[in-house]
């Protein structure tokens, strides 16, 4: 019997005492030791998507299995992290085709959440680059699936939050890069309308784009921020010794939980104003390393403690472009009105949806922010917001969610019934489940 450990997602809420069994070999990916299990990676999803009473940790499955430099195809075990992948790929002139805003999630976790990155409007989510999945199903059978082989299982697994079976390994098509640097163009915007307008103008030509929003500005300055556009810098523009240097480890740490009063609207306002004004001109261009561009928060180890011991919720939603601008402005306005001290509030446009049954991205605007968990009266507020998102035919990102209600979830994800049907096919006894899948009525 494995020992009980307190587990939580990156938001530190909720916390669950779980037995954690570590999988060292493919044969350790079994469901028959417990009544039900959840595959678990780095626990970088924020809420309860990675939590269950019995989890099978895939972290020891961290081996790269095969690499074809001609095609850029990398076959790797599920516990390999984006960082492991970068350490291998960058010196060889490759990069993850899609990366979330942190490099610590595992490949298995990225598949489970069908993660998107700053290039979603141009390249789609990670599903588009997964050529093959090697899975172990509830009955112990080993199968391959892809867009061509068992496509129902494939599209239920990409975005399926680990509920269809264990991913043992995946073959990923990497992106060829000309250097480890990003040419970043940063454009200062005065309000929400301008932010959206610049997004619309720049979508076609840029690979990466994201906007940092000053989440404490109200009224006419609501939605002001910095739009950060990025391209992989061509080799001839790099005036450094090395074209493909790797990142160094993070040196900053948050060694203890911050007290609740540390982050308040006053300290956040000071930070936001400084950050907004550190760029003087309307637009500036710089060449920066991939690490600060893609992973600014990774620089601070355990930054999640900054919101205090009670943890925080991360709220990420998407609404379709039609009326999206007004709806997002309204949502942002209500959040700002409450004075929520979010360290990082991010707005981005997403491209068209894929066939993933529970995949998050749909064409539209997506907003993500942190909400410190200080008292429970935030719950009704967020549920109220969720209703507006449902009305707008938008949805909440399951990898960030800890509080969504069943009915709202069903309304947000119209392919849910199809997902349940596929899950019944491959996992009729619900051997795979999570706190989230129980809460949302999937299992």
């Amino acid at each position, binding site marked *: 019997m*494995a*020992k009980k450990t307190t587990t939580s997602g990156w938001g530190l809420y909720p916390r669950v005492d779980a037995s954690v069994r*570590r999988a060292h070999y493919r*044969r350790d990916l079994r469901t028959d030791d417990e009544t039900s299990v959840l595959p678990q990676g780095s626990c970088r999803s924020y809420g309860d998507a990675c939590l269950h009473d019995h989890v099978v940790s895939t972290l020891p499955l*961290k*081996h*790269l*299995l*095969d*690499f074809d430099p001609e095609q850029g195809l990398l076959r790797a075990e599920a516990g390999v992290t984006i960082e492991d992948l970068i350490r291998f790929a960058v010196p060889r002139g490759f990069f993850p085709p899609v990366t979330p805003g942190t490099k610590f999630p595992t490949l298995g976790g990225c598949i489970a959440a069908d993660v998107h990155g700053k290039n979603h409007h141009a390249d789609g989510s990670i599903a588009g680059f997964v050529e093959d999945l090697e899975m172990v199903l509830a009955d112990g059978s080993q199968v391959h699936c892809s867009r061509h082989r068992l496509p129902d299982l494939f599209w239920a697994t990409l975005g399926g939050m680990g509920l269809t079976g264990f991913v043992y390994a995946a073959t990923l098509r990497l992106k060829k890069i000309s250097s480890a640097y990003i040419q970043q163009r940063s454009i200062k915007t005065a309000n929400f309308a301008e932010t959206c307008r610049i997004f619309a103008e720049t979508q076609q030509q840029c690979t990466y784009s994201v906007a940092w929003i000053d989440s404490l500005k109200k009224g006419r300055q609501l939605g002001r921020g910095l739009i950060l556009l990025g391209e992989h810098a061509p080799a001839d523009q790099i005036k450094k010794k090395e074209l493909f240097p790797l990142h160094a480890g993070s040196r900053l740490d948050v060694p203890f939980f911050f007290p609740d009063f540390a982050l308040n609207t006053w300290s956040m306002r000071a930070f936001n104003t400084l950050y907004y004004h550190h760029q003087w001109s309307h637009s500036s261009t710089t060449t920066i390393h991939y690490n600060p561009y893609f992973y600014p928060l990774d620089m601070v180890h355990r930054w999640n403690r900054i919101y205090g011991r009670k943890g925080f919720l991360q709220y990420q939603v998407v609404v379709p472009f039609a009326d999206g601008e007004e709806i997002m402005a309204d949502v942002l306005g209500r959040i700002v009105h409450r004075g929520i001290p979010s360290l990082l509030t991010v707005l981005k446009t997403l491209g068209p949806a894929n066939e993933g049954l529970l995949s998050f991205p749909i064409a539209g605007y997506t907003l993500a922010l942190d909400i410190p968990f200080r008292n429970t009266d935030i719950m009704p507020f967020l549920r109220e917001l969720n209703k507006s998102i449902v009305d707008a035919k938008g949805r909440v990102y399951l990898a960030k969610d800890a509080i969504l209600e069943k009915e709202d979830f069903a309304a947000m994800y119209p392919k849910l019934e199809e997902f349940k049907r596929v899950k019944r096919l491959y996992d009729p006894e619900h051997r795979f489940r999570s706190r989230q899948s129980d809460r949302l009525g999937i299992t």
Partner: protein
Amino acid sequence: MRALVLGAKSAIAQAIVERLDGYDFALAARDSEELAPFAADLRLKRSCAVELIEFDALDTDALERFPHKVHDQCGPFDLVVLVFGYLGDQRAAERDTTAMARSLNVNFTGAAIALSHLANYLEESGKAGGIIGICSVAGDRGRQSNYLYGAAKGGLAIFLQGLRNRLASTPVHVLTVKPGFVDTPMTQDLDGLFLVASPAKVADDIVRAYKKKKDVLYTPFFWRWIMLIIKLVPERVFKKLKL
């Protein structure tokens, strides 16, 4: 240079392999094909040669031929890293001959016979090389909670001491390693562990100690002092302790 690693599935073994720069590897274990992902990873990241070879410390009859089998299948080797061990359940083994024999045979008999033949091979090859043997702090003094494992590992430590003495005039160096508690699959279900070290930390110490040609390494270092104190407790007192 090629290192032969006995018990290559262990977390400590794999952490050592990751830190031995410039070596090719022969990875020996039971059901060695399960090491294929680890081997593939090594080949991709380090562009070194990695072979897998079947090895069972309980198959004592095969141990004499084993060095030549490795030589033929994987090529000549100059470093032997013995990591395998079997902890078992002390209380259960006290009444179970099979379990008792298993612990003694894996941890001492099999290890000592394998090392004897491998030492002969290394000595005969005449090249600079070494033997790293992983024992345990449990071998420094018998305690009721694990004296079977402790006796076997303690025996192995004395065996390595003798081997070091015998090979002192040759270019083959012998390092005895005595780790404290390490966070590995072997200990994952044990309660009451303290000062638990990571395999990475232990492996760092081992590779450094080997390069410096240390004879006996306690890792992490404080175990040398902890065990010194434990060894100094008079038997009259020690026998009454619940350790």
